[in-house]
């Protein structure tokens, strides 16, 4: 109750005076009343209440005044002789002295309590400020941006005209300002800048209480920011790795899908350029005649078309490409400053960008042979990160795989084509040998037999008949041999070309054929043979399995490819994978770089389409 009466600021002085007068007056009346039941010399205690109240609430001066007033009033009204001041003559100075001492002690105690109260108040305010500061600093996304807000709050909270919190050392040299260093374990974190003309207690309060808490919070905030930055950096690194992996995966997918190497080179140049942040990238192939061929080129900025793909340039002795060719190792090169002809020319022959000043290259090794080089060009001279060669190498390995795959594919196709060609060649030769050898001999024998038959005298009919039967048998053998021969290789194809050969097939087919042929002169032999066998095999299949009433055969070889379409109106449902005949055709067609496709929905007939490039022959 007493404490709640005590405030940091005292009640108004006038109220104190009124309360003092009222107390003394009331106490006097009270003692008049009490005088009748109590001895009057004990009644001076009553006056202590007023002295206590006024001293407690209004402090020493008013307390003393009340004590003096109480002493004299008591003396005047209640000490005998009444209505006379006896303080200086009798013992009545004793109560006055007691009043003074009590007033003095109470007001001193009250003053002490008030000081404590004020300090507690200050501390509470400071704690609030500290909490607010901590909240602001620790929650801030960017520490630097939060500092002015914190400083303003601090200045408001402490009732100062201004304050500033800076990172690092600051505020020195300005006579109007005083710089209080903020450190954490001897590490200078920042500076609290305050007005220079602050009163000493305020300055002390800043030094002793504000600075330590600010240091603690600032240290925590700095740590937090450092951790945040580290997290962001590792997140960026993770993102970069993920980007790189995604780029590699994209290229690897292209490689796995076996798309054209030119497309892969283009994709690699672009993806690598983006990943290593290059300004230009190039993929080059070393040629046997000491030139390099450009396989792909990419530029970060749209600076017009790059050098034409596939163009050749001589390998300059001082270029990066030549260096890689010599060493077989990844290398980087920076343009010497002040080169008259421009940095790019010194680095490589392709880039026509005067701003390019450095380049990093990595060899492309295909099956243990240096095939080419991949180069990234940079406009900045600042050293590129350490592992960049590694990252470029990941891409060069993909290029190497793509090249190796393409070579393997080409070799396979070539070998397949050779196998087919060799087989055709052999069949052709066997057919010729049969025709020129055995068949001619048999024909001649037949003719001779017939002559012998006609020379037999009429009286030997049996011999005549026997010779006749032998001649017939020989003719039958010839027929069989002819059939066999035709199956081995169609002579009509080499003698008359595709159109008569197809007409022959149509004529021989047991199912009626609607044949439409568009041709422009002779085709390469391999293509003619392939088309012939496609039609021949299809007609055989239709006759065997389709139960068709008509086959429509269309051959169009006027353009750059021979297109064959064979449709029947049979029962369909044929398995396109089945049949060694079709597989043989597939080999033959693929060896020529063509395609073959069979659709055979049940009940809707069978359609075979084949496209064979003509130029490949």
């Amino acid at each position, binding site marked *: 109750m007493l404490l709640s009466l005590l405030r940091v600021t005292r009640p108004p002085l006038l109220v104190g005076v009124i309360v003092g007068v009222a107390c003394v007056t009331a106490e006097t009346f009270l003692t008049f009343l009490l005088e009748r039941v109590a001895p009057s010399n004990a009644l001076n205690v009553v006056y202590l209440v007023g002295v206590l109240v006024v001293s407690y609430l209004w402090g020493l001066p008013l307390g003393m005044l009340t004590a003096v007033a109480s002493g004299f009033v008591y003396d005047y009204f209640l000490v005998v002789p009444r209505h006379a001041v006896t303080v200086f003559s009798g013992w009545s100075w004793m109560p006055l002295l007691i009043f003074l001492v009590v007033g003095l002690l109470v007001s001193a105690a009250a003053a002490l309590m008030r000081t404590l109260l004020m300090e507690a108040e200050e501390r509470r305010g400071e704690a609030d400020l500290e909490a607010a500061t901590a909240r602001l600093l620790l929650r801030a996304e960017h520490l630097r941006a939060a500092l002015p807000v914190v400083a303003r709050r601090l200045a408001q909270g402490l009732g100062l005209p201004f304050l500033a919190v800076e990172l690092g050392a600051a505020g020195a040299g300005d006579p109007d300002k005083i710089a209080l260093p903020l450190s954490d374990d001897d590490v200078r974190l920042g500076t609290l800048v305050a007005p220079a003309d602050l009163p000493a207690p305020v300055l002390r309060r800043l030094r002793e209480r504000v600075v330590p808490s600010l240091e603690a919070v600032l240290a925590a905030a700095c740590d937090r920011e450092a951790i945040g930055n580290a997290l962001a950096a590792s997140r960026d690194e993770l993102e970069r790795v993920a980007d790189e992996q995604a780029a590699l995966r994209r290229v690897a997918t292209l490689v796995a899908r076996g798309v054209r190497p030119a497309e892969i080179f283009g994709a690699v140049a672009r993806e690598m350029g983006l990943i290593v942040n290059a300004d230009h990238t190039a993929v080059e192939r070393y040629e046997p005649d000491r030139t390099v061929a450009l396989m792909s080129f990419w530029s970060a900025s749209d600076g017009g078309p790059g050098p034409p793909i596939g163009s050749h340039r001589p390998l300059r002795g001082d270029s990066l490409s030549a260096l890689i060719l010599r060493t077989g190792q990844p290398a980087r090169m920076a343009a010497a400053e002040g080169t008259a002809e421009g940095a790019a020319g010194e680095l490589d022959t392709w880039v026509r960008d005067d701003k390019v000043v450095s380049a990093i290259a990595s060899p492309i090794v295909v099956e243990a042979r240096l095939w080419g080089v991949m180069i990234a060009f940079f406009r900045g001279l600042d050293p590129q990160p350490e592992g960049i060669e590694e990252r470029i190498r990941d891409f060069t390995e993909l290029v190497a795989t793509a090249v190796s795959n393409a070579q393997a594919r080409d070799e396979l196709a070539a070998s397949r084509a050779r196998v087919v060609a060799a087989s055709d060649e052999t069949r052709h030769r066997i057919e010729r040998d049969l025709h020129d050898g055995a068949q001619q001999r048999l024909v001649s024998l037949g*003719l001779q037999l017939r002559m012998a038959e006609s020379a037999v005298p009429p009286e030997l009919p049996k011999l005549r008949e026997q010779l006749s039967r032998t001649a017939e048998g020989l003719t039958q053998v010839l027929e069989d041999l002819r059939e066999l021969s035709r199956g081995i290789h169609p002579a009509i194809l080499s003698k008359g070309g595709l159109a008569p050969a197809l007409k022959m097939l149509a004529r021989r087919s047991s199912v009626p054929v609607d044949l439409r042929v568009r041709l422009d002169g002779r085709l390469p032999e391999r293509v003619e043979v392939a088309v012939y066998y496609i039609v021949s095999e299809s007609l055989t299949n239709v006759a065997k399995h389709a139960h068709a009433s008509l086959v429509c055969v269309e051959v169009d070889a006027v353009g750059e490819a021979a297109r064959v379409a064979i449709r029947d109106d049979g029962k369909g449902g044929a398995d396109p994978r089945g049949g060694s005949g079709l597989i043989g055709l597939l080999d033959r067609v693929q060896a020529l770089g063509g395609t073959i496709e069979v659709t055979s929905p049940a009940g809707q007939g069978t359609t075979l389409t084949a496209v064979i490039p003509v130029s490949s022959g």
Partner: protein
Amino acid sequence: MPLRCLIVDDSDHFKDAARPLLEADGISVVGAASTTAEALRNCQELQPDVVLVDIDLGEESGFDLVPRLCAETGERPPRVILISTYDEQDFAEMIASSPALAFLSKPRLSGRAIDEILRRADA
């Protein structure tokens, strides 16, 4: 006067067998050739009535020879019959478009067969 005949074929076996057969059938085989050039030369010199041309002349083709025989042998070109061990069906289109009178399968060769062809052509 017997029919005068020239045989153009690159197979000696056949020529050796055909000559006595035709002679026995009353056809005079006045010459034989194995190549286009030889055939054209013999034809000019011997002026045969009929020329038997094998479709297959090794590297050369009887189909190419026939029009030349008709065009390059002066005012009275010989009548040409294509012969082969191949089936007529195989070369039907080419035979049809050739100026030759007809096709005669080699195993069926005889003086009567040639006479028939010539008679049909004259009719």
